[in-house]
């Protein structure tokens, strides 16, 4: 088939999912037409336009930048169907009613181009049945694309072929969904609820069953089924509230109706308390009451025994928690099995039934164990899928324990484990993951798009990732940097990776970067700064705090100077340095990224200069960078006044604003419009290496150091102070906030010099460093640092 080009997308249905899928297309710079029924009163597109406007107000934000809403057009089925003829991909996302969907298909079919792809975002209706509602000619270009809520943030898209779907079209669509929308794809069978919801909803039903059986509170269970077992903070019941209890009930009903032969069928029913809540109209977050309810600042939780709410406990700490936090997976399962605590019995039971369910259904619902594990990670935010957890816990021992419970009638059904379970010692191996249907190991998909993912999400038990060839490293296993290459990709582009926890920048990293940059200049064509997220959470505060305590301020001044030298070395290296950013790039991490020749940012990048939170200002060149940017921008602005540009960055730095996407990072000046925004984070090193190569081939030369930066000077500082005086007098900021913010203003304005003075870059670096060290000497800044180290949260003092 010829190359797939998607110039424009139409989304049918402006509900929660439809509007947010449209938003994510806009995030990927794909123009979208969002369709729905015309409004009964007022302008026909009024409701749809309100849905689009609403996208800018949601949290978490569906749009990576607010102005992207302008690329989503509202349209209705009565007057605008002609607009479908421009669309290369049409995604249907209306309510889950077969008749409604088929009606709509009949209505839109005449307007679909012959080469357009038509896809349904249904979460449970059979794709084959939906395809039958289309004219024969369209069926080979129809399939299911099932997004997860919220679609910007949940990686998973299930791709479901109908019987007549063109396999080449599916491959092309998979590549587009991966690279263009940044989604992670699992090919699902056309079985009820597909993969992730089939397993995920069963898991919720199992949790509900054992909650009731053991008489545990919903809040207790949420404390057990959240991060403690590698699942999202919202755990089970809070997730249900967020999803909507009516939606959950609907999915349970679907399972009840469509899976009559499932051995667990008797459990596919709504618990009484859930029915009661829905009958009361308590549907969860959207109705402000569900399993949980907020009463002022107090959070209440439903007590299913009384039907009333009681205060929720957030401080549930048990022996179980300690055990889970300290043991490895195998020890954990052994401990859970042996413990008599109800919480331990609960956890064993929910894992047992989950494993049991997955093993029994593997051949029917998925191509391999890998697809179930990845679907649960990407669609439900689990750190580990069921099969890899089982395997890590010890495949054979756990299998034996499960079968014992089945035989003893403790499991939810008598259905035995399938025979293959006892014939194997694992499901994920170097050669691939087990397919129960074909009884063999299946390797990862080999579509060309996956060559762009040098480090795909790896499952426990799979072949270890290629660590490349180490050229040099320092600092042992948990500190310093590693300079390495992937000779199979580009032997002369180095990759520089930090090793410390959260990639904090300490002395070893600074030393390592100096050496690595020097080596790259000597031996390589370019350098990529990359490691798994986070990019870097900033300077190693522990080291700073210790030096402060010892009163070593001259030493600290020297350290900051060295930090600045590294920033300048990144900027002025004789080879291009490309920063590949994913996740947090804060403080010093942000400064390093800002100094790179070029940035490749994953869309989900959280970038900011947050020094104010610990009573400091950016002094690794960050303040200097903003002064320099203001100077550059003012050169082309009317009046050449640098201050308006300083004012914006002053607010950003004084309020420690963090950009919540790569696009916001560009808007706030942490990244540049010419940088690359990569939709799929796993493509980051591939793109960064290619970018470094291109910069080298384009004849890279480092920029000259600016010796005449026009700065805002004293009037600029005073004008920033105008804001500070009002905030301080109004009681919005403390005296120390004022002091810190004024220091930031002073650095950004190039120090106490006359307005529009011209200074060199080194002067500004000296100003920011001197102010930084002065702040370090203050008691309040030291308190803030100590507080951050102890609690991880900023102190307001």
């Amino acid at each position, binding site marked *: 088939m010829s190359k797939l080009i998607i110039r424009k997308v139409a989304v049918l249905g402006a509900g929660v999912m439809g509007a947010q899928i449209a938003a994510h297309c806009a995030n990927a710079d794909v123009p979208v037409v969002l369709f729905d029924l015309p409004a009964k009163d007022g302008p026909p597109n009024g409701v749809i336009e309100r849905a689009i406007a609403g996208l800018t107000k949601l949290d978490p934000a569906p749009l990576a930048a607010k102005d992207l809403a302008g690329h989503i057009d509202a349209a209705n089925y009565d007057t605008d169907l002609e607009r479908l003829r421009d669309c290369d991909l049409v995604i249907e996302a209306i309510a889950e009613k077969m008749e409604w969907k088929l009606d709509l298909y009949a209505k839109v079919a005449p307007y679909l181009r012959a080469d357009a792809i038509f896809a349904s975002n249904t979460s449970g209706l059979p794709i084959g049945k939906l395809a039958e509602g289309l004219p024969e000619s369209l069926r080979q270009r129809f399939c299911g694309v099932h997004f997860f809520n919220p679609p910007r943030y949940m990686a998973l898209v299930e791709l479901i072929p109908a019987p007549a779907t063109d396999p080449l079209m599916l491959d092309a669509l998979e590549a587009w969904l991966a690279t263009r929308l940044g989604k992670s794809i699992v090919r699902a069978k056309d079985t009820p609820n597909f993969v992730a919801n089939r397993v995920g909803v069963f898991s919720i039903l199992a949790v509900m069953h054992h909650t009731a059986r053991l008489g545990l509170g919903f809040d207790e269970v949420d404390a057990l089924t959240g991060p403690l077992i590698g699942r999202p903070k919202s755990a089970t019941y809070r997730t249900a509230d967020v999803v909507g209890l009516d939606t959950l009930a609907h999915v349970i009903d679907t399972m009840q109706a469509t899976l009559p032969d499932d051995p667990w069928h008797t459990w596919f029913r709504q618990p009484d308390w859930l029915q009661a809540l829905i009958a009361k109209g308590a549907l969860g977050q959207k109705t402000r009451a569900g399993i949980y309810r907020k009463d002022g600042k107090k959070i209440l939780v439903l007590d299913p025994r009384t039907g009333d709410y009681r205060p929720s406990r957030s401080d549930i700490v048990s022996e179980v928690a300690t055990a889970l936090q300290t043991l490895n997976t195998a020890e954990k399962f052994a401990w859970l099995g042996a413990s008599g605590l109800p919480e331990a019995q609960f956890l064993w039971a929910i894992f047992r039934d989950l494993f049991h369910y997955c093993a029994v259904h593997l051949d029917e619902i998925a191509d391999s164990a890998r697809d179930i594990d990845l679907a649960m990670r990407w669609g439900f935010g689990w750190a580990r899928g069921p099969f890899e957890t089982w395997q890590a816990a010890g495949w054979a021992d756990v299998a034996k324990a499960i079968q014992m419970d089945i035989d003893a009638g403790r499991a939810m059904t008598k259905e035995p484990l399938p025979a293959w379970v006892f014939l194997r010692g694992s499901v994920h191996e170097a050669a691939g993951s087990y397919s129960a249907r074909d009884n063999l190991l299946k390797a990862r998909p080999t579509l060309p798009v996956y060559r762009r993912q040098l480090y795909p999400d790896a499952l426990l038990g799979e072949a270890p990732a290629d660590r490349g060839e180490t050229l040099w490293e320092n600092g042992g296993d948990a500190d310093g940097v590693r300079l390495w290459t992937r000779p199979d990709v580009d032997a002369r582009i180095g990759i520089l990776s930090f090793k410390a926890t959260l990639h904090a920048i300490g002395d070893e990293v600074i030393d390592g970067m100096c050496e690595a940059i020097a080596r790259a200049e000597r031996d390589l064509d370019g350098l990529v700064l990359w490691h798994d997220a986070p990019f870097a959470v900033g300077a190693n505060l522990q080291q700073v705090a210790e030096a402060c305590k010892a009163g070593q301020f001259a030493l600290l001044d020297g350290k900051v100077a060295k930090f600045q030298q590294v920033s300048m070395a990144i900027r002025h290296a004789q080879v291009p340095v490309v920063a590949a950013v994913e996740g947090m790039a804060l403080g010093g991490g942000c400064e390093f990224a800002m100094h790179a020749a070029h940035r490749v940012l994953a869309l989900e990048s959280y970038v900011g200069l947050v020094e104010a939170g610990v009573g400091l200002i950016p002094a690794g060149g960050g303040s200097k960078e903003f002064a320099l940017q203001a100077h550059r921008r003012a050169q082309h602005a009317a009046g050449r006044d640098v201050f308006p540009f300083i004012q914006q960055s002053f607010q950003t730095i004084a309020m420690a604003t963090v950009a919540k996407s790569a696009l916001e990072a560009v808007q706030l000046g942490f990244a540049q419009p010419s940088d690359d925004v990569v939709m799929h984070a796993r493509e980051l090193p591939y793109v960064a290496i290619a970018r470094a190569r291109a910069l080298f081939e384009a004849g890279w030369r480092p920029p000259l150091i600016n010796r005449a930066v026009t700065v805002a000077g004293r*009037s600029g500082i005073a004008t920033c102070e105008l804001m500070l005086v009002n905030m301080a*007098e109004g*009681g919005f900021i403390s005296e120390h906030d004022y002091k810190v913010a004024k220091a930031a203003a002073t650095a950004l304005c190039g120090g106490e010099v006359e307005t529009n003075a011209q200074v060199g870059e080194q002067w500004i670096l000296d100003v920011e460093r001197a102010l930084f060290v002065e702040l370090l000497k203050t008691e309040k800044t030291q308190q803030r640092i100590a507080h951050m180290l102890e609690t991880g949260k900023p102190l307001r003092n």
Partner: protein
Amino acid sequence: MTRQVQDAYIVAATRTPVARRNGMFAHVRPDDLLAHVLSAVVGKVPALDAHEIADVIVGCAMPEAEQGMNVARIGLLLAGLPDNVPGITINRFCASGLQAVADAAARIRLGEADVMIAAGTESMSAMPQIMGNKVSLNPAIFANRDNVGIAFGMGLTAEKVAQQWKVSREDQDVFALHSNQRASAAIAGGHFRAEITPYTVRTHLPGDGGAVRVVERVRDTDEGPRPDASLEALAKLKPVFAARGSVTAGNSSQMSDGAGAVLLMSEAALKRYGATPIARFVSYSVAGVPPRIMGIGPIEAIPRALAAGGVKLADVGWIELNEAFAAQSLAVIRELGLDPARVNPFGGAIALGHPLGATGAIRTATVMSAMQRDPKLRYAMVTMCVGTGMGAAGVFERV
């Protein structure tokens, strides 16, 4: 003030309706608004030979950008006044429009002129920030504690006044509610109709097939007042200027766009053109107060203006006290013992809006209209506080 050679009389006064910032005049230029009221006020005396206008004095608090370049001269030329008529833009912040009236009167009273126009125009929509296009403060302000008040935002000064004069949040909200109720009632009663010269706004909207559609709408009503204002809604608003403060968006003046113009003549000119005077300009006073409590300015200015005119407070039947904030309005009312029934009978800036430099001229039009309506109203006053710490007051006598 007995050295004057003759009296100055207000012959006509008019204004535009006042728009909310970024409201109905969002894309209307302030020089166009000015030209509109200038030609309207001149048109009220058909016999007047426009060549005889000695000067056009226009108040404007942010005289830059769309209202820069000596907007007085530009506005009068756009209004079609003859080339020989000069124009000057003056700035005393919120008192600019009233200062224009006082200065125009002064020229007549000194015998230097027989026909003068005073006006004010302001578009706060046109300003990218409320402090003008480019804010740049003198570092010396922050070097000396005594000067820091210069940098205080107006809302913050209102908080300081509320603290010092012990004006409660509840009292401020009640005052704001009354302002809205009075203004809404006045609009419903058609009481502003006589003083407002409607303005036609042209808007360009996307039309069918990529064409541009032009929509014209005649605007004749103040946009600010909220007839549905309630104490409950006002009480819910969060303080804007201080974390534990009492000044909210609901009990502060609104940012607005608008213009007003006043035609003044000497007795000789009245006779020459057969014009009927509405009022005699009695007196004017302006006084400085500490910048940090700028809202109390009228406490200083009102007694001085009354003394200069030999008028007793009890004889002033209508007081247009600019409601920069409910806090400072109440402090002034209580400190001077003003009769709340006579202060802003048609509501004030909390409801009607406050287009800074235009307000003095606009509210002069309101008191002229009140005098024409009520033969028993002898004295009226326009007064306001002024940013960076001043107060101004002008007294008019019905003739």
